[in-house]
């Protein structure tokens, strides 16, 4: 071991000591504050120690090349030429022990159940609004509230069939929910592609660790979607609806359609006739039962929603209302992942399930409340302020990292439209080991697990771990320079207590 360490010092790569790795004040996934390797990371840590910088860089290149080849890319349209970029992928997996996962799993299940009940209620009798648990204004006044959904029957009350919640691990080591994504969450293809890559990069470590498989996601998604179809439709026809090849998540749409073995359709492939939805095939029109749509609410039907949309199918919503087709996720789920409604989710869970939330929220201040607004404005340097309607890391102020003039400008924006902003304390997301410029360094990570909900609620035993690749950055969104890595959920914590490195 000593000799190996010696070579590694020559090739300045490996975090054999806490000093070399330099975790910050955040919780580190691999090391304890005392510099000990956490038991569930021991095999990976051992394996890392045996690989030189050259070797690691080579594997990283192989990984990136394989992503490029598979077309797991997004397209950057430039004035001169168009280039394909991959979302940066880190080859070290993030590892979550079984007992921690158990808590995450039950917390996510509880949360999604409550949110689906909330959606069923606000699109039904609105009991929760009458009881004053959630302010009426917040729900009925939200642009994402779809009056068209009122009193519609949704099978199993499963409004959000696919949910991709964003969790973070706080300084105390506890996971908390940062955001619920109930509209058209994406990233699951990266989860699957990262897994594929990680198995090739660290086959021995993977086998020895006892990692729970994620490969069943496509068929679980398909059965979730099928469980939404009317019972009398034997063998329902499921399709994936994509905005088209120019959408940044097109790869994922095609990938899921291919792995589920169902057609990938665009709006122009669909025809609504006499309240039924059909797709145009080479042999004529064919009935469609379930649409897994990756198109936003506004664009799915120009007759009912945005008139200028060419991405959807005219008449689709009327067919849905009549029960002749199912749209997944249901239109109007966005009202439940609204950043202001988020603050009430613990109340919502208590209201419908009579339980305390297993996974806590991040403390949230609603600028619509005058007293909270005053507090936020006085302490802008301490908070992250987000626009309620925006996503993807846009419309956001990270107070501690902003300049005084940036904060002043943002304060004006908040004062002009306080209802549109919330504030949260700056959370030091946990850090994990990443390969950056040939060195292993800690980078902040979050966690996006995927939850399916139809007849049953299923939490996929894995997740997309997003990485803020810039040193010190807390923003993991891919649009803001984030990357991703595989996430290993261990089946059993007892099998590996740091006994040596697997080959």
């Amino acid at each position, binding site marked *: 071991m000593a000799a190996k360490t010696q070579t590694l010092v020559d090739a300045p790569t490996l975090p054999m000591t806490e000093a070399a790795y330099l975790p910050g004040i955040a919780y580190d996934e691999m090391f304890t504050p005392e510099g000990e390797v956490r038991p569930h990371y021991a095999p990976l840590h051992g394996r890392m120690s045996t690989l030189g910088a050259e070797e690691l860089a080579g594997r990283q290149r192989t990984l990136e090349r394989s992503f*490029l*080849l*598979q*077309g797991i890319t997004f397209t950057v349209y430039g004035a001169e*030429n168009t280039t*394909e970029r991959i979302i940066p992928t880190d080859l070290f997996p993030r590892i979550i022990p079984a007992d921690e996962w158990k808590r995450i799993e039950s917390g996510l299940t509880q949360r999604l159940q409550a949110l689906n009940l909330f959606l069923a209620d606000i699109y039904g009798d609105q009991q929760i609004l009458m009881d004053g648990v959630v302010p009426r204004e917040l729900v009925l006044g939200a642009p994402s509230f779809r009056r068209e959904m009122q009193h519609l029957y949704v099978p199993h009350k499963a409004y959000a069939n696919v949910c991709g919640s964003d969790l973070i691990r706080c300084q105390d080591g506890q996971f908390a929910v940062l955001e619920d994504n109930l509209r058209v969450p994406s990233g699951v293809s990266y989860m699957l592609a990262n897994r594929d890559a990680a198995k090739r990069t660290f086959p021995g470590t993977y086998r020895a660790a006892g990692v729970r498989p994620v490969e069943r996601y496509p068929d679980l998604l398909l059965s979730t979607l099928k469980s939404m179809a009317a019972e009398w439709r034997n063998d329902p026809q499921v399709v994936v609806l994509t905005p088209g*090849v120019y959408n940044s998540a*097109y*790869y994922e749409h*095609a*990938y899921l*359609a*291919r792995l589920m073995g169902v*057609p*990938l*359709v*665009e709006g*122009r*492939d669909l*025809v609504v*006739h006499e309240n*039924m939805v*059909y*797709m*145009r*095939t*080479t*042999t*004529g*029109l*064919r*009935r469609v039962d379930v649409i897994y749509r990756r198109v936003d609410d506004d664009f799915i039907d120009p007759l009912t929603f945005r008139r200028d949309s060419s991405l959807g199918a005219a008449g689709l919503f009327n067919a849905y209302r009549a029960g002749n087709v199912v749209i997944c996720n249901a239109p109007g789920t966005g009202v439940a992942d609204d950043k202001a409604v988020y603050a009430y989710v613990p109340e919502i869970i208590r209201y419908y399930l009579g339980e305390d939330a297993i996974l806590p929220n991040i403390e949230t201040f609603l600028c619509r409340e005058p007293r909270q607004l005053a507090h936020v404005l006085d302490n802008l340097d301490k908070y992250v302020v987000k626009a309620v309607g925006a996503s993807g890391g846009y419309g956001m102020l990270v107070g501690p990292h902003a300049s005084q003039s940036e904060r002043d400008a943002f304060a004006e924006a908040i004062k002009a439209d306080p209802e549109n902003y919330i504030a949260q304390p700056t959370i030091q997301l946990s850090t994990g080991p990443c390969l950056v410029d040939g060195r292993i360094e800690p980078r902040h990570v979050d966690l996006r697990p995927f939850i399916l909900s139809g007849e049953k609620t299923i939490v996929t035993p894995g997740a997309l771990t997003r990485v803020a690749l810039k040193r010190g950055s807390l923003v993991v969104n891919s649009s803001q320079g984030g990357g991703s890595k595989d996430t290993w959920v261990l089946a059993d914590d007892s099998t590996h207590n740091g006994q040596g490195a697997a080959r």
Partner: protein
Amino acid sequence: MMLARVADSLYWLGRYIERAEHLSRLSSVMLNATLDQTESGAQAVWIALAAVGEPGEGQAIGSFEAAQALVLNRGDPNSVVSSLARARENARQVRDQITTETWERLNLLYLKVTDPRAAKEFSDGSANFLHDVIADLHLFKGAADTTMSHGESWRFMMLGIYMERAQLVSRLLEVCFAEGPTRGRVDDHVALVSVLRMACALEPYLRVYTAEIEPRHILEFLVFDEDFPRSIRFSTAQIEQHLSALARSVTANERAGPERLAGRLKARLQFADVDELEAVGAGPLLTTVVNECARIHEAIYETFVAYPLEMRLPA
């Protein structure tokens, strides 16, 4: 069962693949011919450029530059790189329909020809560059053949390949022999060999006719040979075969379906022979092939892709 739009994309995928291969081969033969400063070299350049509709280009900008533009000019919709970009764009549209093996071949090739270093690679060794492009396209076709189900998706792609091939070969022969085998503009031995190379036919030709390179034999071989995969007869037979298989699942249509048009074209070629071409020139028959292909193309659209909705409403 497949989406009409998907069928359309697969068909065009096939056409662009075939076009890219043909253009690469024309460029390759043309560049090779210019190595000899002879009249036959100039003829080969002229044939290649005339076959893509730009006969004067060689004199205007020089044959190397013309070939380079034919391969790498992204501004020209009929260059190799544009054809590959469109093939890939169509493949991306139907990514769920083609196998990963097939897609990766095409994607790899696309990334290679669009790489900023491609121009330098081309000027450092155009022969190798084009050889690799053609070989990669063969790998693509091989991957499609061995990994895709030979069902509807595959048939639409093959249909595109053979439709494009029939038209490209017809065009090449029209340029060379429109007035008939003996009165054509191309009579030079080396130029005739270049024509065979452009049709990827030299070796198979030699096995049938030996090294006697005669315009009459070239026409006979490239128009009528039953076994050579680039002959017009072979291509039209393939078109007819794929269309018949595809049309089986389409409910009866009062209009003449594309498979019937294809059958008629196939029969026309069966009943013609090289003596007819000698008598009246190859022009009329080749024009018929090009026109009939255009009609089949229209009929494919009307039957499988852009059919009027009211004709196919469920009962």
